[in-house]
């Protein structure tokens, strides 16, 4: 782990103004690294802040949301300190995104090829004819016949639209690709194909990927590192091997138990009782405490710091031992 990270997320904290006038702290103190060419998995249950993390990194939070603290270092630039105008240069050229439920992510009244080309021309990467050639190459790369560049999104199947989105995301040769549950809303066969495609592309292009998923099987298959989010905070962060084989956080442990074991299908599915915390009324202590099966009294009182239990393996639980994390 000596390679210099491409992206260093440090203490990222965001708030949403909710309709009731309360403030929802969707993310608090989220830190992790993305190394060049590596894949980071963001996991956690619904509402844990996975999408919010990606949106905050691209600075595309909706108007009700706001980043209140933290730094996002892309190489040596703090993206959060840039003006909106400067930030636009980084979008798509440095980091591109495939959205959650991307079925409507393509403009229905524009030809698919034109939408891909638009991204290339927008960033002045090449002239029109070269861009046109690139559009066809990209479509070919994701397994779409280049002749279909002139078709509209409604003429594509769901899987093809997702492929087109991936082609579009690669248009400006980004350093990092964010993929927010790129396979939900697709049927199982297509899911496997899209995942396979992502893997191949990553290998071929040496792309760094941050993938959001509910599916721990996907994580095991494609990720190098995993960030487990719970209620907007990092519960555990480490290499895929550490997380799968030496999970330290009670939440991660439960999460892994709830995931049916491919090698042992008869095993019953353990679900975690209770509900995630309400972000407008956060408990003073550990956010997982109400649902935790190993909690002690102090868990309800102190918010657990992120501890480094092994080099590169971080856990936010006061029952574990380690020195407090100190990210560079």
């Amino acid at each position: 782990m000596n390679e210099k990270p491409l992206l260093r997320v440090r203490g990222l904290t965001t708030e949403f103004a909710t309709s009731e006038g309360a403030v929802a702290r969707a993310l608090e103190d989220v830190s992790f690294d993305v190394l060049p060419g590596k894949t980071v998995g963001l996991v956690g249950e619904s509402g844990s802040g996975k999408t919010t993390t990606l949106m905050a990194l691209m600075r595309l939070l909706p108007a009700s949301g706001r980043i209140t603290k933290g730094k996002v270092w892309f190489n040596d630039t703090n993206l959060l300190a840039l003006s909106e105008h400067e930030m636009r240069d980084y979008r798509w050229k440095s980091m591109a995104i495939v959205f959650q439920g991307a079925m409507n992510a393509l403009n229905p009244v524009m030809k698919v090829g034109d939408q891909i080309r638009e991204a290339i021309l927008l960033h002045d990467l090449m002239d029109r004819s070269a861009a046109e050639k690139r559009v066809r190459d990209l479509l070919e790369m994701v397994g779409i016949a280049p002749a279909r560049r002139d078709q509209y999104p409604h003429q594509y199947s769901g899987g093809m639209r997702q492929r087109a989105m991936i082609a579009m995301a690669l248009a400006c040769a980004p350093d990092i690709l964010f993929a927010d549950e790129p396979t939900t809303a697709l049927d199982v066969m297509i899911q496997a194909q899209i995942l396979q495609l992502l893997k191949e592309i990553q290998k071929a292009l040496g792309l760094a990927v941050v993938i959001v998923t509910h599916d721990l099987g996907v994580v095991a298959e494609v990720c190098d590192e995993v960030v487990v989010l719970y209620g907007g905070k990092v519960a555990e962060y480490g290499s895929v091997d550490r997380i799968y084989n030496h999970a330290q956080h009670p939440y991660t442990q439960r999460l892994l138990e709830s995931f049916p074991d491919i090698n042992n299908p008869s095993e019953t599915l353990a679900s975690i009782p209770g509900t995630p915390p309400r972000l407008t009324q956060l408990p003073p202590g550990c956010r997982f405490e109400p649902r935790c099966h190993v909690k002690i009294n102090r868990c309800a009182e102190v918010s657990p710091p992120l501890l480094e239990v092994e080099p590169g393996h971080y856990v936010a639980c006061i029952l574990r031992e380690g020195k407090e994390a100190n990210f560079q």
Partner: protein
Amino acid sequence: MARRDYLIGKMGISLLTLLFVLLLDFMLFRVLPGDPVRAVIGRNVRISADVQNSLRAQFGLDKPIFPDQFVDTLGQWARGNLGVSWSQRRPVSEILISKLWNTLLLIGLGQLFSIIFGVMLGLLAGWKRKTPFDIGALTFSLIAWATPTFWLGIILLVAGSAWFGLPTGGIVSPANIGKPLHTVLPDLIRHLILPTLTFTILYLGEYMLIMRSSILETLSEDYILTARAKGMSNFQVLMRHGLRNAMLPMVTIIALNLGFTVSGAIYIETVFSYDGLGNLVQTALVKQDYPLLQGAFLLLAVSVIVANMLADFLYTYLDPRVKAN
């Protein structure tokens, strides 16, 4: 292929509508009170019953209404013969055409300006949502939309003539009537300002409100987020991805409005003594000139149908998703 099938289907519906309208227009003036022969001969009671009957035979009024009279009338209409005006003793088609251009000019200009400004205002208001600009534009539009046509017309007429010395009626000054167009153009424009302004204000509000809600809905779509993620500025997103999608509902509204504008034209033309179809219809109504009214209704109905067909046609170009359904 899908587009052609779609258009053929729409055309079929238009033809059916047209047939229905023709029937309605034909029937309407058979059930209205008044004897056509009496109307033509006026109050001259000395014309004998025999002559009256021969006149009826001459007009085909002695035959049964269905199918003879109807088929007969359709044939006449198809040849452009809409009958003779009772009050003016001239062919209806000739009268209509002489007024048509004036009205088209007024409606055309009014629609053009209200569409341009309505779309722009709605687009900006939606984009700058909840800012003072938005609130101001919204208030203005609601008031403009709710204002009665003749009231606004009169107010503008008074204000325009008192403060800016604009003419209060007609299309050109009496001295300029009959002169070639290019020499009277400045005078024509001066006369057009007030009625066009009235028209524009009346329709602008509606277009602005629809455009605003349409762009707000469009801006919440996923592909807008995609466009922003690509690195586009908000303005680029608005113009390249927002505008066209938000215009789709507008096309339908505009086409529908083109038909209804004529009713607006009746008020405006009356207020400004503007020599167009609206004024003509009003006069014909007062004088119970049924052939003229019938002809005018026919013209209006056909133009509504044609406007709708144009909208359908335009739609297939704006929205690739429309298919035979």
